[in-house]
């Protein structure tokens, strides 16, 4: 087998995976798809406290505050996280939000966003959102536009308080990391 042949195969394999899994973020994909893919990938680099999710429980994605992803959100249920099957639900109240392990908060109403963040504060729920200053408002992962690309900011303090840990590799990729002093609310430039 030649090396060229090997790489051709490798490439073909990679291309075959792209439409199904969308783990990378193609440039021409829609912005929302990228955010969804990032959410999934970030979940993969995040460690939950022992016993979460509970034994036999699926990994549950929650969506609150709108429906920017459409059918793509439901497709998350086709994936697996940490060896578990995934569920994708739409959250209507804080109780439902607390049953989720990762919660995407859509920027629709500034007052209710704060309320929901407050409701899950300190609980092992990875919160992500694309509202401006999301991490500064107590969110854990905030997607931002930078150099024409979707990037993210991470609030380590919020994650630590909730018993979550983010891989250092991911932290290196973040455009901004806040809450390193352990104060949680303090944002770092």
């Amino acid at each position, binding site marked *: *087998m*030649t*090396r*060229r*042949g*090997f*790489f*051709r195969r*490798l*490439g*073909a*394999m*990679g*291309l075959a*995976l792209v439409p199904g*899994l969308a*783990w*990378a*973020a193609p440039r021409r994909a829609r912005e929302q798809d990228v955010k969804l893919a*990032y959410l999934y*990938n970030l979940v*993969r*680099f995040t460690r939950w406290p022992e016993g979460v999710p509970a034994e036999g429980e699926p990994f549950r994605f929650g969506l609150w505050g709108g429906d920017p992803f459409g059918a793509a959100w439901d497709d998350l249920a086709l994936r697996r996280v*940490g060896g578990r099957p995934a569920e994708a639900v739409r959250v209507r109240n804080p109780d439902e939000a607390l049953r989720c392990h990762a919660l995407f908060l859509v920027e629709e109403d500034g007052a209710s966003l704060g309320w929901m963040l407050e409701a899950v504060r300190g609980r092992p729920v990875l919160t992500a959102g694309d509202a401006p200053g999301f991490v500064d408002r107590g969110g854990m992962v905030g997607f931002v536009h930078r150099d024409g690309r979707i990037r993210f900011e991470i609030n380590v303090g919020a994650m630590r308080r909730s018993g979550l840990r983010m*891989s250092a*590799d*991911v932290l*290196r*990729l973040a455009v901004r990391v806040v809450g390193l002093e352990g104060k949680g609310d303090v944002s770092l430039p």
Partner: protein
Amino acid sequence: MFRFRDMPVARKVGLAVVLASALSLTMAVGAFAWREVRSYRHHAADRLRTLAEVLAANSAAALLFDDADAGARTLASLASQPRVDAAWLLRPDGRVFARYGADEPPPQTDEGAGAVRWEGRWLVVARPVRLDDEPLGWIVIREHAGELVAQLWWGAGVALGIFGLAVVVAWAVSLPLRRRISAPIRALAEAMERVGESGDLNVRVPGRGRDEVGTLIRGFNRMLEQIADRDERLGRLAAAVDQAAEGIVVTDPDGQIQYANRAFRALVGLGEEGGTGINLFSLYPTDEPRVDDLRDAAEHGRVWSGRLRALRADGSGYHEECALSPVKGADGEVHSLVVVKRDVTREVEFEARLAQNQKLEALGTLAGGVAHDFNNVLTPILGYAELALHQVDPHSKLHRNLSRILKAAERAKALVDQILAFSRRTEDTRVELRFGELLRETEELLRASIPKRVRLAVSCEADEDWVAGNPTQLQQVVMNLVTNAWHAMEPDGGTVEVAVEAEEVCEPEPDLPAGRYLVLRVTDEGCGIPPEVQTRIFEPFFTTKEVGKGTGLGLAAVHGIVKQHGGTIRVSSVVGRGTTFRVYLPLAVRAERVEERVGARETMPRGRGERILVVDDELEVADFLAQTLETLGYRVEAVLSAEEAWQRFSRSPGAVDLLITDQTMPGMTGLALARRCRQQRPDLPVVLCTGYASAVTTEDLAAAGVAVLLAKPVSPRQLAAEVRRVLDRENGA
């Protein structure tokens, strides 16, 4: 080219040591280097794999979030690894996502996850980047193996240094070692060379080691002892063969002589070292038939022996007894021939002479028998003819006729005498005489009988010349030989040399015992006698002369006479050059000289009336004797048998003054009669007549008292002389 097998052992040992150490060192260094390389590769691969694993883990996020800068930053951490000169982060399709170090396309790799591969001087590891089994891309790290190469070079340098040092040390260490090993071998080699050059087998090599060289040295010494021992034995054998009395030669199967001993060289007349290279079969005359037998035996590998005529180196001939034994090898082929030769020329000649003598003896017996009978016929013819001659008128025709009868009868008697002389049956009346004087007396007669053109050279002088013999017969020997000699020189003439000399015979021959001899030598310059004739010249009636010129009895008579005198004759002759007869007569030891009248002639002595008794069984002889004696003036009584004579004698023994008796008579021999009569009258003189002079010995005669032995036929003159002499001696006594 200097080859390994021509090297001295010491150098070989040194070389072997150095080669062995070099080889083991090379192997050790090689194994060490191989292990080093392997270990290095192992460790390098491990390290690279670990690096790749860490980097792969650290790069997953960058790949996942498509952050090339982050990927580059992750790769940049490789700066802490000085040997890593390049690294690439690849997307799953192989495109470069991020790079570190050299700006070049990543080395292609088809290895499995985490495999480490050598690419020239680089070590390359490629590892997939995964997250939850999802392939995210590839990490490829390249490390420069310069350190290993340098390490290897350094190792090689160290190894070479150690190698060189080790070789030098090995060489130095092997110096005394190889001296110890090679010294005994060199001693052995030198000893061998010395033995080879000088042949000195007393050389011994010192050495006590129990190793192979020691064994070799002891074996060599033992071998030298055995060789010396064998040499000695061989030398003894060789000396024995070389000094053997028989001629011994060893030849190849074709007869080429390879070895000839001293006796052979002497026999064939070769030089001190000669003989080899001559062909055995060339030493025989071509007309010798038995050579073919010899050659046949040699070719077929048979043993053969026999007598042959052979040739010396100078071409002269001799007789040999030859024994041929082929020496066969294990394959049955004849390898060489051993031939033993002995000169038997003397034996062959002896035997020939013996055979000749026996032949002459037989002839003599035959001729003697004939002559005896003939004598008995002649005696009355002569007697009566002579008697009648006295009784007739000397001038009458009858007287002349009687004279002719008498002459013819005397010639016949002479012939018979010759035959008897040959057959040695003449009366043996020997006296001791000086042969020189006899020769001198005979010389006169010879000069009268030989022609003037023949010169006669007589040498009578000899220190010793006493012989016991019958002068008449010896004179006849001289006469016959000289006559033959001048006959041989007819018609040209020449010189006949006659000489006497004393000679000592030291090597006895069958017919010539050792002792002192008088040799009568008669040499002529005549035609010579061919060898084939030489053996026959002594046979009676053998003559080479014209018919009528010779009787063929001359040399036969000479032979008989000489034999009777206990002597022998030798002839040597070269055809065309002349002949020499040598007559050997035993010398008598005698100081006192006895005069013997030779050829004395006197008138017949007469009787004085003495009474004589004559006995002969043959009437004619008895009558002849009686008439002759009566004519001479004796009173004779003749009887025809011994018995009759005895009766007559015993009647009056004193009435007989002399007894004349025949020896061979029926009833009683003459000797027996004489003995009987002399018992009665011991002083009775007896005269014995016989045709066989040799049949009675002198002892017999003496015992019987016989005074005189008369050989038949008896001439009246002889009878008269002898009877008178006997009677006078009796009277005188």
